[in-house]
């Protein structure tokens, strides 16, 4: 049922979902979070974050509400829905083996093949 997204877009969607799974966050907070998790190795453009969030919202994977931010401003906070959580789990299950394989490749020596 999902439209095929190009690779980049689907990566970004997955990333945002993972970020949201950490708890209720604003989009800006999410960006900071991703940077922290990736130890600043992952540079994400700020503009495209929003379409990705809106896409996830539109598909019912996340939900949002307005709330007070730390510095007394109203901000929009995102949360995973039950459906989003399920989807994330299946993706993680699919992703981990692949990630393991990919992680192993650079360390492989010719003799081992």
């Amino acid at each position, binding site marked *: 049922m999902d439209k095929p997204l190009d690779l980049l877009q689907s990566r970004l969607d997955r990333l945002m979902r993972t970020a949201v799974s950490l708890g209720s966050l604003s989009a800006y907070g999410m960006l900071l979070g991703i940077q922290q998790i990736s130890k600043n190795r992952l540079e994400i453009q700020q503009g495209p974050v929003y379409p990705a969030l809106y896409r996830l919202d*539109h598909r019912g994977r996340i939900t949002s509400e307005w709330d007070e931010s730390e510095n007394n401003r109203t901000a929009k906070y995102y949360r995973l829905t039950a459906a989003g959580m399920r989807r994330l789990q299946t993706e993680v299950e699919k992703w981990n083996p692949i990630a393991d394989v990919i992680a192993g490749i650079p360390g492989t020596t010719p003799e081992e093949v």
Partner: protein
Amino acid sequence: MNLWARLRSWLRATLKHSGMASEMDAELRFHVEAYAEDLVRGGVPHQEAMRQARIEFGGIERAKEECRDARGVNFIENFTQDLRFGLRTLRKSPGFTAVAILTLALGIGATTAIFSLLNAVVLRLLPVPNPQQLVQFTYTFPPNGPENWNSWFGYPHLERFRRQAGMLSGIFGGTGLNRVSVGWHGSPGLAQCDAYTDNFFAVLGVAPQQGRLFAPGDDREGADVVVLSDRYWRSRFAADPSIIGQTILIDQLPFTVIGITPPKFSIYVGGARDLWVPLHALDRFTPDPNRWRASFTSWLLIAGRLGPGVSLAQAEAELDIIHRRLYAEQLAVSEYRDSQSWQRLVRESHLVLHPAATGMVSGLRHAYELPLKLLMGVAGMVLLITCVNVANLVLARASHRRPEIALRMALGSGRARLIRQLLTESLLVATAGGALGLVIAWWGGALLVRMISTGDSPVPLDVRPDWPVFGFTAAVSLAGGILFGLVPAIRGTRVDPGPALQRGARGTTGSSRFLDRVLVAVQVTLSLVLITGAGIFTRTLENLRHVDVGYQRDNILMFSVDAKLAGYPKERASALYGAILEKAAILPGIQSASVSTVRPVDDQYYLVDRIRQVDGRALPDGETIKVAWNAMSPGYFSTVGTPILMGRDFDLRDRGATSGVVIVNESLARQVLPGQNPIGHRLDGAEIIGVAKDSLYGGAREQPRPVLYRALFQGKGGTDPSQWVGAGALSFELRYRSRAGLVDEVRQAVASVDGHVPIFHVKTLRAQTEDSFLRERLLATISSFFGGLALLLASLGLYGLMAYAVARRTAEIGLRMALGARRREIIWLIVRETLWLVLAGAVAGIPLAVWPSRYAKALLFGIAGADPVVFATSVAALTGVAVLASFLPVRRASRIDPMVALRYDG
């Protein structure tokens, strides 16, 4: 999966569109400001921080656009945007817009007008609950074939069906009384009256508009109640509700009005009735105890409603058994029981149920179903041509818009988005064309109804647009808009912005030139099919008009009189007709006058009988001679101009004669007494006194057939002086020298005999003959109109193509001329291209044209479907028009000044 969530989000987004836009703004603002604050905390000055935050965020507007896309809001938003933009662009080129809308309106209007007639005649359901349960009873007779069925039964069938059939929830029967006179407060008038069993309205499920309809018990001996139609109630009684309970006189007999049917109630197409009386009221008009008992008669329509869950086939199987058993019983006690042909009828006849959801078997529908379907196809082709024409216009316009489109693509518009925008424009044009087309159809539909009306009043057909018609128009407009908009839109956006912007609007690609030509060739092809069709139908009409029917068509006025309408009993009817004939014959300007049962080219009666005895010798069963017959006063043959070849006409001597006299036509004489002088021989006891030249009894489409003429005022064997008088209306024929004021004089003459006697069917023989070609005339006129329209549109398309070609090739032509090409060669250059297009169109068109003309075979007369002369004429006409259409472009090409041309477009 989350379809619901998506839908909710989309709905929320669409409904609270402005709310969402500001929410989006707030969220993005928060982002930028929060980031800026972080930067400030890191030591960047406030101003610089905001700037940097904005830069790093990237295009804010683009992000918003993508957010909108992500939510699916853009569709509606884009659509309204496209709509506004489309309206603006169309307003900017009013010429294109007007021509496109008008062309389309013609196509859509023509198609819708034909469809509204087709809808009224063939498609519309009866205005009763669950019309698909209604069935009409018919039976077949040998030799079983598509034409050998009858929908009229005798009364015993109705009785038996009502008693024994279990699969139907109700069965009713009835018949037409035809024209009756209706007197109310002393003023006379004519109306159409039917007589039905008292469950008629209940089975149909019709509720009264006023008063009540028939109830059980109404259909009894001496029945004296009457139900009025809404139309008659309004036209005759000014919709006065107090008419209920009052007494009106039908053929001088009192009836009490009990109720009014709802508007539009009718069970036939084109056969609106004014009054309904119970079936047994028939006995009050003409007492005939035999009517309810006689077997093998055909006067009663029988129909019913299938019970719930019963299929047509199940009911048919049950009814067939009842029908066949009854037939067998009837034959066993009949005088025909030893006749082989009757035995065969009883053995082979089967009952067949006709679905009656769209009404009972109707002559109008029978006559016009095929022509209307054919014309629908024709109109569809015209619509296609108009679509192609508009597509051409849009294409031409698209090449002018190339810079605009290139600019928009360069600025980042997606191609799909541009196509959508161009399509929106096309749909706007289509919608406007459809709306205007509906107006044309409204007017055209009424015109069409007038065209197929021959009687004293227009055929009661409601062609005002209803929901099916609106739906049809909307569908056609939408399809048309997509048809003419899509291809140009796809091609118009196939633009490489760079070069297109540099070179401006000049020139199109090779493939587009090809497309232009294909479109024009398609127009040529379709036009050829249409004008060939028009040619075939026009030839058919001409052929019919030139048939020698055996009458002198000019200077004959006819009118009908029915003594019954003025309350004359059968015995006194002859005297009335005789008196009218005497008065009419002495009117100034009248050469001769006569009265007959069947008038020349009659559309009311077709009388058939069998001769069973020649010169006292009974013909064996199966060799009796089937004849058409007519009964007339002396003077008929000289009035209608049919010569008597041998013997004499009827005259006053025959009136009191003791033995009957008859006149035969040539065909009958040849068949009964081949090679002999028939004068003096006897047919069924009546003496042959004359032989008349063959005339076509039923009109131009018939072959000569045996006809027997009887003396109207004499009767069979001289026993009953009014044998042939009193059953229905008689027709008077007057041969006149001058027609001025004649109809009024006739009315006065009839009134001077009896002021209560109405006359009707007043018509000249020429008009009567013309009316008998109505269907052919309708086909010929409309197909010619459509053919002409198609030709005009095709020539416009050709003109546009050629004009464009010349404009595009100005430089090339200039160069050729500079290099010494002669003017003739330049002209040939352009004409050749035209001729190639026509040739291509014709080659494709001829096989296409053969197919519909084969389909129309039943409607043709004296011409084969694929007539080479018509084809040749059509191709010649098309070529002529094409050459004419390219005349202006050719002239322009031939006047190109090489010097100017070369400078202009170097």
